[in-house]
């Protein structure tokens, strides 16, 4: 029960941030991909199944908030959650560099996929590149900074150490 409360609270905070402060920031050119960041964090902490489930649920909620293309965020975030969840067993998850790279990859993939829907044609590639670049420049440093602050605040590793058995789940 506690797990579900934590999951719903985390998703709620992410959606709340996205629909208030971050949308205004995005309109001013500061793109923070909080959906990708949250999915990475959740997948790193809880593995592939929960990463995919969280990504799917969060994406679906974000899709419902938009007027078009239901399933757009859900698919991308579920895949990101799944992939990072699978990888998480073989990574040093509390490494700042690992987190940075994972958030960067997730942000680039998610932004490319979701912005491509809005643009809908190859001619808009320069805008897409600009948008992805902005998100990639802002999201990983901010995300990693937040994780570092949280780690120092709690005084313990957020994700635990790499599993001794690094074999992927059958």
């Amino acid at each position: 029960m506690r797990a579900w409360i934590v999951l719903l609270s985390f998703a709620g905070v992410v959606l709340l941030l996205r629909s208030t402060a971050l949308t205004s920031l995005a309109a001013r050119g500061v793109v923070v991909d909080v959906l990708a960041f949250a999915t990475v964090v959740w997948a790193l902490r809880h593995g592939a199944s929960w990463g995919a489930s969280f990504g799917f649920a969060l994406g679906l909620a974000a899709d419902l908030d938009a007027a078009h293309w239901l399933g757009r965020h859900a698919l991308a975030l579920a895949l990101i959650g799944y992939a990072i969840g699978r990888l998480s067993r073989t990574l040093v998850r509390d490494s700042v560099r690992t987190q940075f790279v994972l958030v960067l990859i997730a942000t680039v993939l998610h932004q490319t996929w979701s912005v491509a829907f809005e643009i809908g044609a190859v001619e808009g590639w320069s805008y897409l590149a600009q948008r992805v670049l902005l998100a990639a420049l802002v999201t990983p440093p901010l995300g990693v900074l937040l994780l570092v602050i949280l780690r120092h605040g709690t005084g313990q590793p957020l994700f635990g150490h790499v599993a001794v058995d690094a074999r992927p789940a059958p």
Partner: protein
Amino acid sequence: MGGVLPPAERHSSALMGLYATLSLLLLIMGDHIPVGALRGIGAWMFSPFDRVVLTADRIAAAWRENSLLHLQITRLELENERLHVAGLENESLRHMLQLPPWRGMPLKPAEVLALGGESLPSSATLSAGTRQGVKEGDVVVTESGLLGRVGEVWPTLSRAVLLTDANSAVACEVESTSVLGVLRFMTLPHPHLELTGVPLSDTLRVGQRVITSGMSRHYPRGIMVGSIHRIGRDSGGLTQTIEVAPAAMLSRLRHVFVMTPPTLPEDKP
């Protein structure tokens, strides 16, 4: 957490396949699924939290705006005096020309609780619904200009579809020129508002104001929409591509006003 979770790691591939299938089905058929009620529930659940999150922003903004508004009120009071005289004159002239008297539309204030959309906000959740007299199709404006229309209404909340929505279209005219066009949101080569369907023969200048033309039934005439930001030539060579800078600040939406457009005689049941 592991105790609560199902042994999902073993089934993660199957689960992922299920999510991927569901997402693809939604992408294909999602536009045919009515999700208005779900959005309403979401908006209702989030509105108290939205208000809390926005409180700090509102306080800081209110402080900054207060001094500006004092100055603006003084200017508007002076302007109002001048307009009062002009209004009396206009009323008398309309009477002489046997034109119907102009009727102002009541404005219902509402707070913007949340914004939806990726690069630019394309929808906004408003703190007024059917109980406050808001109806689907009502016009949403700010003090600066047009913002969009009410797309969905719930008892205490509503959702406005902004000018930046992909399906938005507003019949407009360029002020004092009577050049007509339809304002649409374009994503290429970058997201912008464009006044479409203006022939090359019409002469326009950057900076001219664009207002609603009243040619469509959705928006009354004369609402400020924006100003001409850039003029180009359509790739087809028949029309101009006119980029319009919106008058309403989409990145700083806090308070809006909802107004009901006048009902045309043929619309009445």
